[in-house]
């Protein structure tokens, strides 16, 4: 009986960890290019997010943002500017995320840039948000994982001036939109 309980606990913990982890395909993409010095990278762990939530907040909007941040488990960004292979990188990343693992949420064309948003859900909650952006010279792949509130992420993106994330404000529920 004790052995069964231990096995059940291990299974539950493994599933719980897997639910809030980054998708496998995207992880491999990040791992492939993270060591390449020509790429811009940023990684934020859940520990950093939990420390951010200790900040003093002034407004209800800021409190909402901090509450949303407290539920995040990680953030990764991979990008390249002024690059002749931006389009090729975009196609490679797009091929990885447009798989059964992810559901397309929205696609946006803004001047010469294409942006696509994907989500991964489990148990009715969004546990990963992917943004893939490709232009003539620039490429970016952003992955946010944890328990995700799209509206709050959009506000965070606007405050932090992360190009593209403000587009999430156009989402109502999980409907797919094309601009």
């Amino acid at each position, binding site marked *: 009986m004790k052995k069964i309980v231990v096995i059940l606990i291990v299974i539950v913990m493994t599933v719980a960890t897997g639910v809030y982890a980054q998708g496998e395909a995207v992880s491999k993409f990040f791992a492939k290019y993270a060591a390449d*010095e020509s*790429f*811009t*990278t*940023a*990684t934020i762990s859940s520990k*950093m997010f939990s*420390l*951010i939530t200790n*900040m003093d907040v002034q407004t209800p909007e800021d409190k909402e943002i901090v509450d949303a941040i407290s539920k995040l488990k990680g953030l990764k960004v991979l990008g390249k500017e002024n690059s002749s292979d931006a389009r090729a990188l975009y196609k490679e990343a797009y091929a990885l995320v447009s798989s059964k693992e992810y559901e397309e949420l929205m696609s946006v064309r803004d001047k010469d840039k294409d942006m696509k948003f994907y989500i991964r859900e489990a148990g009715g909650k969004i546990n990963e948000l992917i943004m893939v952006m490709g232009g003539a010279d620039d490429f970016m792949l952003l992955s946010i994982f944890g328990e995700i509130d799209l509206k709050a992420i959009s506000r965070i993106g606007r405050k932090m001036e992360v190009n593209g994330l403000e587009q999430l404000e156009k989402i109502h529920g999980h409907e797919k939109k094309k601009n």
Partner: protein
Amino acid sequence: MQKFITLFMIFSVTAAFAQSKATEALQIKYTDSRALFFYNNTLRMLNQTEDKGYDELIKDIEKMKFLMIDKPAAFTSSDYKKIVTSYKGDAFEGIMTSRYQGKNFDVFLKESGGKTKGMVVLVNDSSSLYVLDIVGSIALDKVTSLYKAFGETPDIQSQIEKFTHGHKPAGKKDDDDND
């Protein structure tokens, strides 16, 4: 018995307040580095105008070392990666890493029993490496304020300059550098 108590007290103080070995190793390796070292009471002493914001900033810092290293021409990204590895070997966990156009900004945290015991911020730019090694804790939203306080607050800056009498070669201990 008295000898035992003395040794025990010395060991306890050392264990509680030890600065990072990786930081000390950097200071020894880069003998031309500039080092500023402060205990909490020294940090408070710098606040001659009794700026309450500054006191709030430093209240949980037990001691702090700020190292400014002019990188030799042979310093490469591999050298920086080795430094990062050395901090991880000192039980620091990377909570935020970023790289942009060859520059790095990394934050590391050391915890014990769920409490923050130390924090290291590394800033690596084209010509210099800056190390902020804090024993204790500081709210992450205050780290940039700390850099600004030392760099831009005229009163605190002049106090630092008087205190350190200008450029102090590494390896030469301050009166307060009692690790």
